[in-house]
């Protein structure tokens, strides 16, 4: 790990200012992803701004009937919150499907949104990776791509967003709230928060440099059956090959977002009109334009079957 200086700011705006001043500075919250990457020298910040002391760790009801989840609420606490379990069960289920008990006790809401890809070529510093080292190329394109993106990828990058939580937040239409160095706040719909790689895969999100996430807001509850179904190589503590977050109403209508298939949680609202007709009708539209590799074409079949299983579970 490279040497770094360390500070604990007194307010979210001070934290944003500290990171804005220094392009090699980073926020640290749970640290479960950042420190892993720093040990491998994939991330090499020279200054860490520890935001753990800033509060931002409560879950509050909003006037609109939803919930405002502080950026520093730990994954365990968000998954266990009685209101989330009852009204946003897809979010509890997604969180509980991710990582291990130890990691969920540390990992935060904002940090989880900002976790970086688990593409093996991003992790292997001997390989070309445009996300890790812009302009170096992408070894994954002609490499082992079994885990990688089937849609929304580019010639520069076929990495996926690895998370579960964000897939549930996408199906719930969450909003990410931020503050910048001047103290100005901004609201970003979750649909616009994660980027597609395009020709700048090194930029994962629409956050400006130094912009700090302060909360994630959930709209008022949708009702219906909440399902998070995750398919992975082992039964626990593994990243999704494909996951589905679905909220299904008694009349068969509903919403679905997919994880493990793209650089961001993948949801096509226009396809949700087909929900009552079954999984095949939905995924035909959701994955129109998919460009799978030889190694990961199975994900298209798997996505259809996983949604089908989720719809069956919702009806049960």
């Amino acid at each position, binding site marked *: 790990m490279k040497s770094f200086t360390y500070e604990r700011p007194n307010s979210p705006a001070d934290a944003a200012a500290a990171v804005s001043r220094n392009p090699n500075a980073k926020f640290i919250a749970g*640290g479960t992803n950042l420190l892993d990457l720093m040990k491998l020298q994939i991330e090499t910040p020279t200054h860490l701004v520890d935001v753990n002391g800033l509060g931002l760790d409560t879950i509050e009801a909003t006037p609109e009937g939803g919930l405002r989840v502080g950026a520093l609420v730990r994954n365990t606490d968000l998954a266990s919150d009685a209101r989330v379990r009852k009204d946003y069960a897809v979010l509890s289920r997604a969180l509980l499907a991710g990582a291990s008990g130890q990691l969920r006790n540390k990992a935060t809401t904002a940090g989880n949104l900002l976790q970086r890809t688990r593409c093996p070529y991003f992790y292997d510093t001997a390989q070309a990776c445009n996300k890790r080292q812009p302009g170096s190329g992408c070894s994954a394109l002609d490499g082992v791509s079994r885990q990688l993106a089937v849609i929304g990828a580019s010639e520069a990058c076929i990495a996926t967003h690895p998370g579960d939580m964000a897939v549930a937040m996408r199906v719930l239409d969450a909003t990410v709230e931020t503050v910048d160095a001047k103290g100005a706040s901004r609201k970003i719909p979750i649909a616009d928060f994660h980027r597609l790689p395009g020709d700048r895969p090194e930029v994962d999100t629409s956050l400006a440099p130094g912009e700090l996430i302060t909360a994630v807001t959930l709209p008022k509850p949708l009702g219906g059956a909440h399902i998070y179904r995750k398919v992975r190589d082992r039964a626990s503590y593994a990243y999704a090959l494909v996951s589905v977050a679905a909220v299904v109403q008694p009349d068969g209508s509903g919403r679905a977002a997919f994880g493990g298939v793209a650089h961001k949680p993948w949801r096509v609202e226009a396809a949700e009109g087909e929900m009552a007709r079954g999984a095949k009708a939905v995924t035909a539209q959701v994955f129109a334009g998919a460009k799978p590799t030889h190694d990961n074409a199975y994900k298209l079949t798997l996505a259809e079957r996983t949604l089908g299983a989720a719809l069956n579970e919702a009806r049960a």
Partner: protein
Amino acid sequence: MPSFGENELSRRDVMAGATACAALAAVPARAEGRPETAGPEQPVLAKVSLTVNGQRRELELDTRTSLLDAAREHLHLTGSKKGCDHGQCGACTMIVDGRRINSCLTLAVMHQGSEITTIEGLGQPDALHPMQAAFIKHDGYQCGYCTPGQICSGVAVLAEIKAGIPSHVTVDLNAPMQVTDAEIRERMSGNICRCGAYSNIVEAMTEVAGRPA
């Protein structure tokens, strides 16, 4: 800290001493004229005070020091093990402010004022924690390397179930939590045992939970 006045130093003491000397020799981090963004050329030291197994400890550490390395190399509490050092194996599990975490994936300087329990604080050979005794009774290990992490995790898992924290295999998120084999296996998935003592670990935890194994 190692004592250099004594005749017998272990290999660990010599290595820890060498690290400490390098750190103490560090001058203020930034050389004249270097831009702030260039980063420190030398180790940066920071003070932190922690309560470890009930004892207040003051340390001055390289900011890079993980909580695990602080315990092992600086406090000489070598019960917590370094397996993967990347949060994948769970051998480093400690209970920090009442919660189990991977001590390899957190910085010691981020734990100012924290209350930390390591395997040494759970129990000692003459006064075993019930979970330690149950691991011995049920052969919950072979080589023993993952065992301190398994036991810290096991103690915390039973507390999590008691506190009503759900898991991936919990059928009803809104019903009281049960101690079942499936719950124990899912909740312990962050602790890898390459000897494969899993079924005996489940038996040990089941006994401590008060359910017949």
